[in-house]
């Protein structure tokens, strides 16, 4: 079963007299363990789409199922709970909590969102840090590690709860070429290891080269849909 199913999805922003149709009735399915990107120029609606899938922004019209649940009408608390259980986030600016150590940052969703026991938590966090190559930096604060290392920690944090879906908004925008390539490789590896779906919103051609499915957006509509395994669709 598809991990994301969108039908006639629309998002309209109204500010005073101005109405912006950010997403104009899109339909798509995303299958489990896929590596997908939304690309397009600024203002095309890719971040809006990502935010709707992440339960951060409700659609104006249409239906949206994520991980088997219709999320269109979730209230704030239900949305938080759903995100905590099913969705991991990787941000452009890493968004680690500066007062927590690397270990504590990865541990945070298990402790504050999911209430795992201490033993289970410690094992899971260390496994994830090991998987992203950050186990030896576990006690450092985010300010003591590099940008690439921060993004590795962010990937570990996104995966620690066994999320079905990781949403990454421009995850390589603040990284140099070499580091970006490593992070993309890491995420692909994580996808293979944990069978997690990764959805990117990006301008970065390095990501586009690596993803399996690309949705190109323009003015809130898909202009193309490229499946690296199966060719182009319009």
């Amino acid at each position, binding site marked *: 079963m598809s991990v994301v199913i969108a039908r006639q999805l629309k998002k309209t922003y109204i500010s005073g007299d101005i109405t912006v149709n950010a997403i104009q009735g899109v339909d798509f399915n995303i299958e489990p363990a896929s590596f997908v990107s939304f690309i397009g120029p600024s203002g095309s609606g890719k971040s809006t789409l990502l935010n709707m899938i992440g339960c*951060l922004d409700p659609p104006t019209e249409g239906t949206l199922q994520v991980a088997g649940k219709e999320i269109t009408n979730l209230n704030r608390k239900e949305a*938080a709970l759903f995100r905590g259980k099913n969705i991991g986030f990787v941000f452009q600016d890493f968004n680690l909590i500066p007062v927590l150590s690397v270990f504590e940052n990865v541990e945070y969703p298990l402790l504050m969102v*999911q209430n795992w026991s201490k033993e289970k938590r410690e094992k899971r966090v260390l496994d994830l840090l090991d998987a992203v190559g950050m186990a030896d930096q576990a006690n450092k604060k985010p300010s003591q590690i590099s940008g690439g290392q921060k993004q590795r920690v962010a990937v570990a944090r996104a995966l620690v709860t066994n999320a079905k879906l990781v949403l990454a908004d421009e995850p390589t925008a603040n990284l140099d070429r070499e580091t970006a390539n490593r992070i993309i490789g890491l995420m692909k590896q994580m996808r293979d290891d944990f069978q997690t779906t990764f959805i990117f919103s990006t301008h970065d051609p390095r990501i586009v080269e690596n993803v399996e499915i690309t949705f190109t957006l323009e003015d809130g509509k898909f202009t193309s849909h490229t499946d690296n395994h199966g060719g182009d669709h319009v």
Partner: protein
Amino acid sequence: MEETMFNILKLATRNLQRYRRRTFLTSMLITLGVVAVLLFISISGSFKAMMIGQITDSMLGHLQIHKKGYLASIDSLPLNRNLSGKQLQKIEQVLSQEKAVESYSMRIKLGAMFSNFTETTNIRLNSVLPDEELRTAPLLMERMIEGEKEGLLKKGEILVPELIAKGMKVKVGDSIVLVANNKDGSVNGQTFMVRGILEGISGPGGRDGMIHLDDAKALLRIDGDEVSEVAIRLKDIDQLPAVFARLKAELESMKNKDGKPVFEVHSWEKLSPFFNIAKMIDLMTFFIKIMLVAIVLVSIMNVMVMAVYERINEIGTIAAIGTSPGKIMSLFITEGFLMGVLGTAIGTAISLASILIMNGSQISFDFGRQKGLLLSPTIGAYDVVTVVFIVIVIAVAASLQPAYKAAQMDPNTALRHV
């Protein structure tokens, strides 16, 4: 759940450490407020307790019973409003059943002419039975600044108030004459030996002389038992409101043949003008507490509003990864709570140390005609707990609005905040 609470506490502590100078300055502001309030309460409270002790233990007693209407005309010391023997029996009967009463003293208050054989002046006198009076006003002896204290006074002796002794140039051992009118208007005189000089204190009766009750009866040609007032001392002044209410209910319900009340019962609070000063002190304490509340409210709210504003992006992140609005709110409330606890803990420690130092330093002061009063500030656990409670509750209350704002923040908007 416990672990989550601990983690919230840990996060809140670290967030406070993130802006150490700001946390320190805010906590110091709270500390200053707490120190000001606790020191004011301890100093004013000890001053109040000392003055109340002086007034009740050396003169008024805790309660007084008079014939109805006596107090309204007390300035003229009316002898025709004295309590009769039968009425006194009723009072003694009621008092004997009241376990909270330590002792009581019967007094006749009178006005007289005081003559040293060369000059004459007016004097107000309080006539007492020395043993009863000393049990009821145990600090009375301390007001004797000259003369033999032991036994207070005997028949034929007078304790002269300090100002009259100075004005009339009377010394201990001198003879003087008192001339008084009885309630029928006839005049009588009697010679007395000056037994001692009494220091004046603030309040009604504070500058009265003192003679033996039997001498007053002889001077006023009173046959049988008759007194102007019954002063009562309680075992514990904290029982005053309850005992006062009981005596008032019982005695003031007794009616004469005309159906009118016979007795009136008053506490020292009604009798002494110092009660108004005590009330003023309480009022000042209240306003100082209000100022403390304002300090805590404004300083914590200011810091928490700043904290929320500075961490909008972080709030967006923790909300996005699934932290519930309730937990986000708890996080910010805990920060305010911790700042309140820190400021209060330091403030309480400084205050208690200052009180100890002041007690060790034996600071003395003068109040009116009373010289060399020793300042011995004390503070009860109740006052400390009240102030601590107020500060912490206000600290939490001040954090509520910023915390609520953080919890209600739209994660999508918060994440886009730069």
